[in-house]
């Protein structure tokens, strides 16, 4: 694996690559006064390989959702570039760019808001399919077939749901419809933005399974944006994980590596916060909590985490760390003092010992 500039290239084929994306928002209420500027992304680079998975994890407000929306073309970016299959988006006309972005579909957090309340499931799916049929030169009958096919694919009974309105469906069903709708345009990637956080816990697993299933069967890559480590881990099985904090990637690596052996203090603080199932799990011995809550920390100098980091030194306060590969691993970390800490809880074995994976 090599790092050339900010470009991470440890895989040979990737479909989508974000290079050094930056994004700021103008705060509201400025009027004729110059408004405040909120920095959402400070130069983020990720890559999503073919039929792979990437989990973006971080606290709310860290910029992970913004990154997801930029990937889908729903939000413009200020700096950097998006490269799809080697083609830079910066060089394309809006029309060409839109066609590229159609390959990346988003699954929103709230499946109710994501569906038009006045349209039936059938209409919701038919309309984009008609558009698709025109693009790829299919007949009208194909649309009908395809609706049934897609509903089957997401595990819904076409006869039962086709004529229903969103408010007649359960949360899980709605989210499946959302997925089906995303599939109408044969996307290469699905960006799932907190896709299960508003669904009943009992139905979450089904949706996660569906996403995994789609990856396996259709080769659709998944970008899974979440604050829930467990969900991220499940959804992005076998893929990689990026931990984002205040618009910067703090740690990047394969998902199991990052979770089992986090090297960045921020990742470690996140994982420390994962609740422990008392009696079944044993908390990691190195668990710690950050020094202060996130939104009170607004420092812009040195490491962005230094204000909360219990391990911060004077260097951290002054010097801004780079995202650097760890020696001998496929792991990147943004810390002057990257080191593995055992913060993840481990299941207690029947015998009382702790397993080491």
């Amino acid at each position, binding site marked *: 694996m090599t790092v050339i500039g900010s470009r991470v290239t440890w895989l040979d084929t990737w479909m989508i690559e974000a290079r050094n994306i930056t994004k700021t928002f103008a705060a509201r209420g400025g009027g004729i006064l110059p408004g405040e500027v909120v920095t959402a992304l400070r130069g983020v680079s990720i890559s999503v390989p073919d039929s792979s998975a990437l989990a973006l994890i971080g606290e709310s407000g860290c910029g992970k959702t913004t990154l997801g929306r930029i990937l889908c073309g729903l939000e413009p970016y200020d700096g950097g570039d998006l490269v799809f299959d080697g083609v830079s988006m910066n060089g394309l006309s809006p029309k060409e760019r839109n066609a590229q*972005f159609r390959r990346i579909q988003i699954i929103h957090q709230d499946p109710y808001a*994501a569906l*038009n309340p006045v*349209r039936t499931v059938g209409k919701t799916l038919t*309309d984009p399919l008609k*558009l698709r049929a025109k693009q790829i030169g299919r007949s009208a009958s194909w649309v009908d077939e395809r609706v049934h096919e897609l509903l089957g694919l997401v595990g819904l009974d076409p006869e039962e749901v086709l*004529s229903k309105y969103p408010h007649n469906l359960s949360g899980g069903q709605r989210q499946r419809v959302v997925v089906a709708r*995303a599939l109408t345009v044969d996307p290469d990637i699905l960006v799932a933005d907190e896709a299960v956080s508003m669904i009943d816990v009992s139905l979450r697993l089904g949706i996660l399974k569906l996403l995994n299933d789609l990856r396996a069967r259709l080769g659709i890559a998944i970008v899974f944006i979440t604050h829930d480590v467990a969900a991220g881990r499940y959804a992005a099985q076998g893929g990689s994980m990026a931990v984002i904090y205040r618009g910067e990637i703090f740690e990047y690596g394969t998902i199991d590596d990052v979770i089992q052996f986090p090297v960045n203090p921020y990742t470690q603080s996140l994982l420390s916060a994962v609740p422990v199932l008392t009696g079944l799990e044993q908390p990691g011995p190195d668990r710690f909590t950050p020094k202060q809550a996130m939104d009170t920390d607004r420092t812009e100098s040195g490491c962005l985490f230094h204000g909360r980091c219990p391990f911060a030194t004077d260097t951290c306060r002054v010097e801004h760390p780079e995202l650097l590969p760890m020696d001998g691993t496929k792991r990147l970390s943004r810390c002057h003092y990257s080191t593995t800490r055992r913060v993840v809880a481990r299941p207690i074995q029947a015998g009382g010992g702790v397993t080491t994976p």
Partner: protein
Amino acid sequence: MEAILSEEPQSLTSKELIPAGRGQRGQSFWAIAWSVLRHRPTGMLGLLIILLFTVLAIIGPYLYPSPLPTDTNSILAPPSRGHVLGTDFEGTDVLALIVVGTRYVILSAALAGFFIAFFGTVLGLISGYFLGWTDSVIMRVTDFVLTIPGFPLLIVLATVWKFGDPLSMGFVLGIVGWGALARAVRSQVLSLRERTFIEAARGLGFSSFHIITREVLPNIAPYIGMKFLLGVTGAIYAQVGLFFLGVVPFSVSNWGVMLNFAYRQAGAMYSSNALMYLLAPLVCILLVTLGVVLFLDAADEILNPRLRRG
């Protein structure tokens, strides 16, 4: 009189965004409408009144072909068997005048409602959907339209504009009255934009036109429908007011002109003979608006499933 121009009382209009669907599966729009109306006799009454006047507007001029007969031997006659509502200043049957005059009032009011709904919806949709400078421009214009007092503007416009046919009357009332709706539609669109299905539609590659007309518009259609009905009542007041003041062209069968003549010429308040000449157009105006007001609640329920009785 400002009804079509100013903000409506909150209880009447600023209902929350209506995420209406067509209700339960298998129930058609008409079935729902019927069941709501059955449970709301007042709404049914309103609908019947509206229908009655609509029918009159269509067939009226055929019932009493022009020119209407005049009988100068019974000028301003009291109601009798031959003239159920009496006669006017030239001995024409008041009932015939009312019936013939329905077309202008109803058609121009409907056109006004249409233009209000059309301008308000189109501008509100564009403004709320595209935002940016388009939004700024449209909203400045909207502020302007909302600030200019509507009825005085109509009076001033009467000096240049000929209100002779229903279209020109409806058009001007529409031009004057769309501001509040545009602003309301815009805020509805803004709140719809918070809902991610709009974004999803964009991601799926739909054109803005498709999204505005197929995704956004159906969601606010019930709201616009209500505003249309309110616009119709406002337009009736405004035009009858203009005719009552006598600032617009003269036509014997116009309800406002009838009011004007009964009040100023026939002394209807002072002599019982001409009372029906005054009361007939008055009552008709009240009936039409009452019909719309009564129907509004039922219409709200038909269009808005959340208000429907379980």
